[in-house]
């Protein structure tokens, strides 16, 4: 019964995302995978933010609140349907190509892998330290109390280990699931964790289909579903894979914005970056990097629309996360407090630690038991499809990946923990945020070799 309620909650998330997506991209046609993936991803982020805002004004997650959100989503969908603006499902793609029938193979493998992830998650208790000490704990707190007045938890220093200042996207989504289920069942609540992690696959497909034909895009999208690192953390209940999922959306739409400067890409880039910033502190750094790259490309190419878009990006990001930034401003920081340390002189004084950090990161990327050949594949694809370096969106993505890895290396350099203890237990999770960028880069370089999609009808470009 709780599982059914959890399923209905996921459906509500999709409906909210579908309504918002239709408002952003009216009358667009999408395939089932793209619609469910993008709709659910936007819905998840929207649900988390809405539950946070509601909690700020005194309403903790409850069935009544979920029903209100559902009613608004349905009303929005009806309104959009009346104006013929709903995103439409493309059931029979006109650009079906010879060989696309082989897609059934990666599709079956992907579905089987995701099903195994779900079974693994739902059949075991929450056991990862960070999952229960940080994210699960906050979900319980938020399921019991609204943020107004602030629960004692957020100012009790005996809970400092649970990082009182960490963003609340995943805890709110989990608390929403508890509200839907009517009980705090953390094992079934991991449904949310698996759902968010599984969305990485359709988000990867979405980004790949922009440039790749159907079959190669499907094959590349299968890779994240089979990665041991994803299996390990998908059902754990941590926020790393949800961050990777939101980051996938943000970098894809940033790249598209840099390439096409379409308003809808900018809106989606802002949304996904805002969601990422509300998911983990790393997400805020990634969101700022997105804006910086957009601004850099705008100024570098002297394109007014592009740098104005970058300014709009920062304004939108601030508007989305302002409530969180203001509310969390007074929360106690732990001795880690990477944000302050990265902006202090410590970054310079601790630079010698990079001699230990960078080799450890390189070694981690070649750990085949964790990553398979993912990192190596992206490098090889870049060599084979090196012409793609001439594309601005590819360059932008390489830049984003570089900034991401550099910021993580710097964060390690200022950590108060012993690196030899900390890195082995956190590095794979941290680098999992880079999975979407690696997959997109592999695909976009591959597209230069003649596997790009080239059949097109206007209004049909999401193929």
């Amino acid at each position: 019964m709780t599982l059914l309620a959890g399923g209905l909650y996921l459906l509500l998330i999709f409906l909210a995302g579908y309504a918002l997506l239709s408002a952003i991209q009216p009358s667009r046609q999408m395939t089932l995978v793209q619609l469910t993936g993008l709709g659910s991803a936007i819905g998840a982020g929207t649900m988390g933010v809405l539950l946070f805002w509601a909690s700020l004004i005194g309403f903790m997650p409850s069935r009544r609140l979920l029903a209100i959100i559902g009613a608004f989503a349905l009303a929005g969908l009806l309104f959009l349907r009346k104006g013929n603006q709903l995103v439409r499902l493309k059931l029979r793609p006109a650009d079906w190509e010879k060989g696309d029938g082989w897609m059934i193979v990666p599709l079956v493998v992907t579905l089987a892998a995701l099903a195994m992830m779900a079974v693994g998650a739902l059949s075991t208790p929450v056991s990862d330290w960070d999952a229960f000490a940080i994210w699960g704990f906050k979900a319980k707190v938020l399921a019991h109390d609204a943020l107004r007045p602030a629960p004692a938890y957020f100012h009790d220093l005996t809970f400092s280990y649970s990082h009182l200042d960490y963003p609340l996207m995943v805890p709110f989504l989990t608390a929403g699931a508890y509200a839907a289920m009517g009980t705090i069942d953390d094992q079934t609540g991991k449904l949310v964790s698996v759902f968010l992690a599984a969305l990485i696959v359709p988000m990867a497909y979405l980004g790949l289909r922009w440039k790749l034909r159907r079959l190669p895009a499907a094959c590349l999208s299968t890779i994240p579903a089979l990665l041991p690192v994803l299996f390990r953390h998908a059902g754990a209940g941590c926020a790393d894979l949800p961050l990777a999922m939101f980051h996938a959306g943000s970098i894809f739409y940033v790249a598209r914005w840099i390439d096409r400067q379409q308003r809808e890409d900018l809106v989606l880039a802002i949304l996904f970056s805002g969601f990422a910033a509300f998911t983990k502190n790393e997400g805020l750094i990634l969101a700022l990097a997105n804006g910086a790259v957009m601004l850099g490309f705008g100024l570098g190419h002297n394109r007014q629309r592009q740098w104005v878009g970058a300014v709009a990006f920062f304004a939108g990001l601030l508007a989305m996360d302002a409530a969180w930034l203001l509310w969390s401003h007074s929360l106690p920081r732990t001795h880690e407090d990477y944000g302050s340390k990265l902006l202090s002189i410590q970054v310079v004084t601790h630079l010698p630690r990079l001699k230990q950090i960078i080799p450890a990161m390189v070694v981690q990327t070649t750990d085949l038991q964790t990553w398979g050949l993912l990192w190596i594949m992206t490098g090889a694809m870049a060599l084979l499809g090196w012409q793609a370096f001439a594309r601005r969106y590819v360059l932008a993505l390489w830049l984003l990946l570089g900034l991401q890895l550099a910021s993580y290396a710097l964060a390690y350099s200022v950590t108060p923990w012993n690196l030899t203890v900390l890195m082995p237990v956190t590095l794979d999770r941290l680098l999992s945020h880079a999975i979407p960028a690696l997959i997109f880069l592999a695909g976009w370089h591959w597209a230069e070799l003649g596997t790009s999609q080239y059949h097109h009808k206007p209004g049909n470009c999401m193929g």
Partner: protein
Amino acid sequence: MMSASTGGGIRVKIYAFSAFSAVKSRSAGFVSIRGQMDSRLTFECNDCAHRNVVLPIDSPAERNSLAGNGLGRSSPRLNRGNFETILNQFIPAGHRSARYAAWGIVLLVLVHLCWLQWRPGSDVRRIFTAAAESAAARPATLPEESFDRIARQAGDANVVLKLAGYARTNPAVENSLGYFYYRTAYALYPRRVYVAPADQVINDGGDILRAGFNPSRQWLEEHDVRSALTFGNDHAGGETPHLEILPRDDGWAGTPTNQPGVNQ
């Protein structure tokens, strides 16, 4: 290259001008034309800004016409690429071998991942085994489950953590003590496991050891503490961690003492 503006103020850049491309661009209202000297032309669509709109160049004459504009090498297999880049001058004429190599790499990655998930000890195998086991056959001694069970025994009141024996002084227990506290605090919430005053920073097990929390009976009563969780070996050699209900009047709590089993 020629350029012009559309009515909407969008800049139109035509990199490869020929009768063929001009007709196509006017009729379809494209924003820009990006020639590819293979067997097709790529356009950016004005409707949805899609960049991969393709119009086939049917006749060899058309191809040669484009090639003759100095936009690519007029070899039998014409160059394809992006005219606005310098790099495309070096793009090899044929991509077939590279394409096969790319497919090979992707398939290799997929096969390797399938093998990683199929081999003994893999995540999939572990999940499959766990799911196939009945709940009763599963080990009942998973630490998180046993801690949760202890927490459930605490009823609806708060709990104080008591360090006993070696756990009071041995730094080797910091890690397991931290795990124990995090887990029981999580399992008990909204009830509390008190290990220190609320203004004492606890970031790990070492902080709990250093806190040496020893609340008075009055404090315990004010905070609705009715049981104690013992971590470490106690003088009676009992199993730890374990929960004991605090007798109301035995005087253990709040009494500064060096007796084993009491927080210092």
